[in-house]
């Protein structure tokens, strides 16, 4: 009950902050999904540079038969947008085939988040980059090539 009141107050404030960050960004920032790591992942993608202020590592667990991403986790250092895009990207990728997941674009992530401040658009790129690297890492480890996902 008390927690609910606090949540309501927070939501009200989130709406205020929505000048800068959309409600969806704020929600995911507060409760990011798929955070953490996977032991012995099928693939790992590391992107970012601490100088720029955003570092993301995406871990994927892939079903070797179906190419489906059965589990995905992310570790993120960075600002609000970095955390939200990490969360959103992993949500979008989970349950998808590698081929489908590889097609997720930065714009889709930003759109699903209800937009991002224009100065912050670069952050939304990163999680998608990390996902793609993780997919490539998985393919390479399995002697496959990115071309397998084409056509």
């Amino acid at each position: 009950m008390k927690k609910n009141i606090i949540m309501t107050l927070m939501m009200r404030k989130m709406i205020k902050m929505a000048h800068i960050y959309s409600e969806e960004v704020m929600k995911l920032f507060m409760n990011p999904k798929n955070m953490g790591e996977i032991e012995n992942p099928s693939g790992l993608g590391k992107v970012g540079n601490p100088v720029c202020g955003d570092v993301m590592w995406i871990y994927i667990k892939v079903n070797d038969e179906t190419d489906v991403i059965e589990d995905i986790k992310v570790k993120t250092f960075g600002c609000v947008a970095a955390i939200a895009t990490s969360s959103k990207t992993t949500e979008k990728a989970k349950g998808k085939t590698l081929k489908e997941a590889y097609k997720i674009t930065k714009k889709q992530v930003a759109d699903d988040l209800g937009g991002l401040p224009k100065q912050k658009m670069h952050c939304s790129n990163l999680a998608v980059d990390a996902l793609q690297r993780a997919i490539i890492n998985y393919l390479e480890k399995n002697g496959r090539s990115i071309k397998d996902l084409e056509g």
Partner: protein
Amino acid sequence: MKVYFDNNASTRVDSAVIEAMMPYFTEIISPPSSDYGHSFGVEAKEALDSARETIAAKINVKPSEIIFTSGQAESNNFAVKGIAFANIGKERKTFLASNVSHSTVLDSLSALKKLGFIVKLIKVDSKGFIDRNHLRELLSDSNDTPLLVSVPHGNVEIGTVEDIKEIAYICHEYNVPLHVEATYSFCKVPFDASVVDLATITSHLIHGPKGVGALYIKKGLKIQKLIDGGLQENKKRGGTENLPSIVGFAKAVEIYSQEINERVAELRDYLWQTFEKKISDFQITGPTKTEKRLPNHFSVVISYVEGESILLHLDLLDFMIATGSACSSKQLKASHVLSAIGLPTEVSHGSVRIGLSKYNTKEEIDQFIEHLSSIIARLRAISPMNAEFMREWQDLKDQGAIIEEEHHHDINDAEDD
């Protein structure tokens, strides 16, 4: 209940200040400059004179040396450009400024560069103090005698309080006037402005209203007006005097006692101790000796977490603080102060700074530290960074493997719609 810990950005106006301003909103309306007209103007003039005396006394200068302005930005622009324009077309062209100077000083200097003036930045040490040797070097090395040296008294980001007497002594050895940016130290640290040539002070950081400040100009110093028109302010600043705010400014000065400073410093020390007890992996920015810091100031960089994320989590809990993280600035650049003291950008992302005021309490601090440590724990749990990561990173850097790409685009030039 909101907890406001960002008193180096701005402060709550004291109710005594508001009360002092009131008659000048609704009763004594005439500009003080119309004092040949009617007694409203005379009352206004009296109030203006009295405010000027209060403020002059606080920094040990003559009332006629205090010029009221619209605040820090105008005062700093006035000081720097005023000296430049009073010397335009002459031999001397060089300005020296601390590389931790406020943006209103540095940007004024950049503007002057386009007009042919030369700007050299004085290095600071890792605690933010002016490098005396470098200052002497620049003072004597320059082809011309510099027109002005500008340094901050108290640094807003890292709390450093400079020894102004010493800097003034050096500058005057070379016959160069000194401008002191005293916005953040005014009323908080004793300041005898009579030993310098120009000083910027402002109201809204000491529980006075926004939109008013002053520039101290030593009698006899040749300076050009920034704002022309009219004989106001000893013929140095045109325009209708902002009397309600000036009266409020003086009231704020009057009630900002040493006792307040002591009380706030005690709170700050309590914050510091509690912070050290409850939080690991951080580094104080600025002096670690409290007597060398602004009495209300605490600043750190916290490892493996990013400042904006900390700020927002705190904000959702109604705690207001500040950061020098690149991510939270509109320019997406790390604070120039943190860079100047040699902090790598990857470290300055975790910057957090707190400005306390007389309205804060120990209870607020206790709650704050509790929230902060759980936020840090949460963010660290999802962060790929840790001690090992940073060691590897440092190795790569040392091997020259890191190329620092600046992918943040500059939005300086674009206009809003």
